[in-house]
C-alpha cells in the first residue's frame, strides 16, 4: 500500500527530524492521508463528491486516529476492530502488529527488577484460586526542565500461570497508564465492559514537579498521583476479563513500553477526542432510543442521580479536609504562643504547666494533620474515583445506545437496498440486479450482526453493572471502616495526650 511504502523509505536522518516535530507532523500527515483517502473514494471507487455520506467521513475519522498513531512514531499495538467497516477492509491497513521503529531515548525507561516489591493485598473474587498483588511505589523524577517526568515502579506478585515469573516489577510513567486505558477502552467499549478510568491529568501539578520545587505541595501531588495509579491498577486487575487481557499483562510485565504519545493533551489525537466527544454529545441529545427493557432506563437514571449526590458529598468532604488543615495550622500557632506565655510566667509550676500545654497542642497539631490526610486519602479520593467510574458506567450505557443506533441504521440501509432492488426489477437491468441482490444479502448479514452485537452488549452491560455495584458496596464499606478506624486511633491518641497533661495541671500550686 502506498502509505506503507512511504514510511519505509524514510531515512534515518529524517526520522530524527520527524521525532522532534512529531506534534504538528501528525497533523500534516493525517491531512495528507485524508486527502489520499478522499481521492481514492472519488477516483478509484467511482463516487462523486456529493455521494460521500457521513459513514465515509466517519470511516475517515477512524483512519485519522490510526494514522495519527503511525505518524507520531508511537507504534502502539492496536488490535483494530473497525466498528464501521463497510467492506473497506483493504484500506484500513494491516491488522498484524506493526514492526516498531522506536528510537528509545536513553532517558526514558530504566527497568528496575532487582528491588523487592512492597506488599499490597488485593484479593480476587473470581472462582479461580490465583492471586495477584500490585503495588505502585518509588516515584522518581527522570530528566530535567520541562521534559522531566516521574516514573513509578509497578511491582506485581502473582501465581497466575499467564505471567512469566512470580514476582517482577517494571517502571512506568503516567502517560503509559493513560495509554493502557486508551487501548483497553478501544477494545472493550463495544462489549459493554466498564473500564476503570485513570487518574486525571494535571498540568499545574506536573509543572510544579517539573520545575523541581521541593516543596510539600508537589510532594503531596506526587503521593496523590502514586496512590491514584495504584488504585487504578488494582481496579483493572480485579475485573476478570481485563486480567486476561494481553495488553494488561504486557503493561505489567514488559520491560520497556513504547511511548504512548497519543495521550498528550495537545496532540492531534487529543483534539480528535474532543471532536468525537462533542459529536457524541449531540448524538445523545438527538437520538431517542426505543427502550425495550426498562431495567436499562431506570438504571441509567439511578446512576445519574447517584453521580449528582456523590458530587455533593465530595464537595462536603473536601471542605472538611480544608477546615481540618486550618485547625491544624491554628493549633500550631496557638502552641507557639502558649509556649511563649509559659516562658514569661513567673510562677514556676504554672510556667511548667503552660509549656506542657504547648507541647500537648503541638501533638494535637500533628494529630489533626494526619487526620486531614486520612480524611483526604480515604474519603475524598474514594469519592473522586467513584465519580469517574460512574462516568465510565454512563459511557457504557451510551455505547449500548450507539450499538442500537447502528443496528437501526443497518436496518434502514437494508430497507433502501430492497427498495433499490424492487426498482431495478421494474427497470429490467439484469447486471445491476445481480449486484443489488448481492448487496441485500450482505446487508441482511450486517443487520443480523448488529442485532447480535446489540444483544451482546446489553447482556454484558447488565452483568457488568451488577459486578460494579457489588464491588462498589464492598469498596465503600471497606473505606468507611478504614476511615472510622483512623478517627478512632486519633481519639485514642487525644486521650493519651490529655491524660499526660492532667497531672501537670494538677501540680500547679
Amino acid at each position: 500500500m502506498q502509505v506503507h511504502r512511504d514510511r519505509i523509505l524514510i531515512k534515518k536522518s529524517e526520522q530524527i527530524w520527524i521525532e522532534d516535530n512529531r506534534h504538528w507532523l501528525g497533523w500534516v500527515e493525517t491531512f495528507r492521508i485524508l486527502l489520499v483517502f478522499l481521492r481514492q473514494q472519488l477516483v478509484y471507487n467511482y463516487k462523486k463528491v456529493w455521494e460521500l455520506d457521513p459513514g465515509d467521513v466517519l470511516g475517515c475519522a477512524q483512519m485519522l486516529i490510526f494514522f495519527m498513531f503511525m505518524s507520531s512514531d508511537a507504534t502502539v499495538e492496536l488490535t483494530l476492530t473497525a466498528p464501521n467497516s463497510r467492506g473497506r477492509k483493504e484500506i484500513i491497513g494491516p491488522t498484524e502488529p506493526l514492526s516498531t521503529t522506536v528510537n528509545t531515548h536513553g532517558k526514558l525507561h530504566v527497568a528496575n527488577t532487582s528491588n523487592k516489591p512492597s506488599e499490597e493485598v488485593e484479593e480476587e473474587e473470581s472462582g479461580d484460586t490465583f492471586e495477584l498483588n500490585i503495588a505502585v511505589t518509588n516515584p522518581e523524577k527522570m530528566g530535567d526542565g520541562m521534559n522531566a517526568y516521574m516514573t513509578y515502579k509497578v511491582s506485581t506478585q502473582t501465581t497466575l500461570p499467564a505471567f512469566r515469573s512470580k514476582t517482577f516489577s517494571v517502571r512506568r510513567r503516567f502517560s503509559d497508564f493513560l495509554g493502557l486505558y486508551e487501548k483497553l477502552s478501544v477494545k472493550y467499549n463495544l462489549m459493554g465492559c466498564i473500564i476503570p478510568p485513570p487518574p486525571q491529568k494535571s498540568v499545574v501539578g506536573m509543572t510544579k514537579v517539573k520545575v523541581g520545587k521541593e516543596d510539600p505541595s508537589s510532594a503531596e501531588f506526587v503521593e496523590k498521583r502514586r496512590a491514584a495509579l495504584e488504585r487504578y491498577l488494582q481496579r483493572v486487575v480485579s475485573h476478570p476479563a481485563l486480567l486476561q487481557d494481553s495488553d494488561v499483562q504486557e503493561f505489567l510485565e514488559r520491560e520497556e513500553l513504547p511511548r504512548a504519545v497519543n495521550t498528550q493533551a495537545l496532540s492531534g489525537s487529543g483534539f480528535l477526542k474532543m471532536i468525537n466527544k462533542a459529536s457524541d454529545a449531540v448524538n445523545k441529545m438527538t437520538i431517542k432510543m426505543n427502550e425495550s427493557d426498562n431495567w436499562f432506563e431506570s438504571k441509567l437514571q439511578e446512576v445519574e442521580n447517584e453521580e449528582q449526590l456523590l458530587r455533593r458529598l465530595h464537595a462536603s468532604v473536601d471542605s472538611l479536609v480544608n477546615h481540618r488543615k486550618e485547625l491544624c495550622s491554628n493549633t500550631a500557632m496557638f502552641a507557639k504562643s502558649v509556649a511563649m506565655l509559659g516562658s514569661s510566667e513567673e510562677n514556676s509550676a504554672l510556667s511548667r504547666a503552660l509549656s506542657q500545654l504547648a507541647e500537648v497542642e503541638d501533638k494535637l497539631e500533628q494529630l489533626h494533620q494526619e487526620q486531614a490526610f486520612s480524611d483526604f486519602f480515604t474519603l475524598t479520593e474514594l469519592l473522586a474515583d467513584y465519580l469517574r467510574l460512574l462516568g465510565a458506567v454512563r459511557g457504557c450505557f451510551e455505547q449500548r445506545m450507539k450499538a442500537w443506533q447502528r443496528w437501526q441504521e443497518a436496518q434502514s440501509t437494508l430497507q433502501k437496498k430492497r427498495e433499490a432492488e424492487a426498482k431495478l426489477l421494474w427497470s429490467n437491468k439484469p447486471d445491476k440486479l445481480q449486484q443489488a441482490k448481492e448487496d441485500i444479502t450482505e446487508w441482511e448479514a450486517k443487520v443480523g450482526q448488529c442485532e447480535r452485537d446489540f444483544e451482546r452488549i446489553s447482556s454484558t452491560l447488565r452483568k457488568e453493572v451488577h459486578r460494579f455495584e457489588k464491588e462498589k458496596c464492598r469498596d465503600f464499606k471497606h473505606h468507611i471502616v478504614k476511615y472510622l478506624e483512623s478517627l478512632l486511633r486519633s481519639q485514642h491518641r487525644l486521650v493519651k495526650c490529655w491524660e499526660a497533661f492532667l497531672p501537670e495541671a494538677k501540680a500547679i500550686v
Partner: protein
Amino acid sequence: MTSLSQDCDKEKLRSVSVDLNNDSSLLIDIPDALCERDKVKFTVHTKTTLNSFQKPDFSVSRQHEDFIWLHDTLVETEEYAGLIIPPAPPKPDFESPREKMHKLGEGEATMTKEEYTKMKQELEAEYLAVFKKTVQVHEIFLQRLSSHPNLSKDRNFQIFLEYDQDLSVRRKNAKEMFGGFFKNMVKSADEVLISGIKDVDEFFEQEKTFLLDYFSKIKDSTAKAEKMTRSHKNVADDYIHISATLNSIAADDNTALKQHLEKFAELLEKLRKVEGRVASDQELKLTELLRYYMRDIQAAKDLLYRRARALADYENSNKALDKARLKSKDVAQAEENQKQCLLKFDKLSESGKKELTSFKGRRVVAFRKNLIEMAELEIKHAKNSISLLQGCIELLKVN
C-alpha cells in the same frame, strides 16, 4: 426575643475562678436576662444582710451601659486609685452568630430540609452560648465588686444595686467621648514613658516588667486560641453537611450499601455533637480564661500606672517645694502639697502591693482550675467519641 432562666446548676459554676470570700453578707447574681434586638436587659438580684440596704432581698433591671457607668465611676474615684478595679464586662456581641444565620438563610435553597434544621439548631445553640457567656461575664464583674472589702462599700455600687428605676445613665456625648479618647491616648503615652523609668522599689519594678511582658503574650495567645476554637467549630459543622448528604444517598440506594451509609451518617451526627461540645468547652475554659486575664492584667497595669503617676506627682511637688523655698513664697502651701503627695503615694504603694500579691494568687488558682477542667472535659469527650466509633465499627464489620 430570648429569655434565659438559670436552669442547670452547672451554669452556676463560673468558668473563670474568682476568689470570693463566702461571706453571705452580700450575694449578687443574675438569674435572668432578656435579649431585645440589640440590647440585653439583665435582672440583677441581691440578697444581703447589711443594714446599708433598705431591703434584704431585691432585684433591679440593668443594661450593659449601666455596668460600664459603674466601672468608669469606680476608676475615676481617687480613693480607689490603689486598687485593681475589676475589668468592665465586654459588650454583648451577637455579631458572629447573626452573620452565620444570615448566610444560612441565603444558602437555604441548596440544602435539604433536615440539613437546614440541623444547621439552624446549631446556630441557635451558638447564639444561646454567646448569650450565656455575656450574662456570666457581667455577673462575675458584680461578684468581684461585692467580694472586695473596699469596693463593696462604694456608694455608687449600692445605688447600682438598689435604685429600682432606670438609672438612665447619660450616654457620653461627643465631647466626653472625645475627651475620654484623648485621655486614653495620654495615658498610653505616659505609660510608655513611665515604663522606661526604673522604679526604686524592687517589688514594683519586678511586677512592672512581668506584667508588661505577660500582657502582650497573653493578648497574642487569646487571639490564637479564638482562631483555633473557631476552626474546631467549622470542622464540627462540616460533619453536619456530610451526614445529611450521606442520608440522601442512602435514601436512594437499595443495595447492601444502604445500611452502611445510614449507620455512618448516624455516627457522624453523634460525633459532630461531641466535636461541637469539645469546641465550646475549649472556648469556655481556655479562650475565656485567657481573655479574662488579659483584661485583668490591663487593670493591674492601670494600677501600676496610677502609682507611677502618683510618684511623678510627688517628685514634682518636691521640686515645687524646693523652688518655693528658694523664692520663699508659698512655702507652707508647697509643703502641704508635698505631704499630700507623699501620703497618697505611700497609700497607693501599700494597697498596690497587697492587691498585686492577691492578684498573683488569684491568677494561678484560676489557671489551675480551668486547665484541669479543660483536660478532664477533653478526655471525657474523647472517650465518648471512642465508644461511639467502636460501636459503629463493630456494627459495620458484622454486616
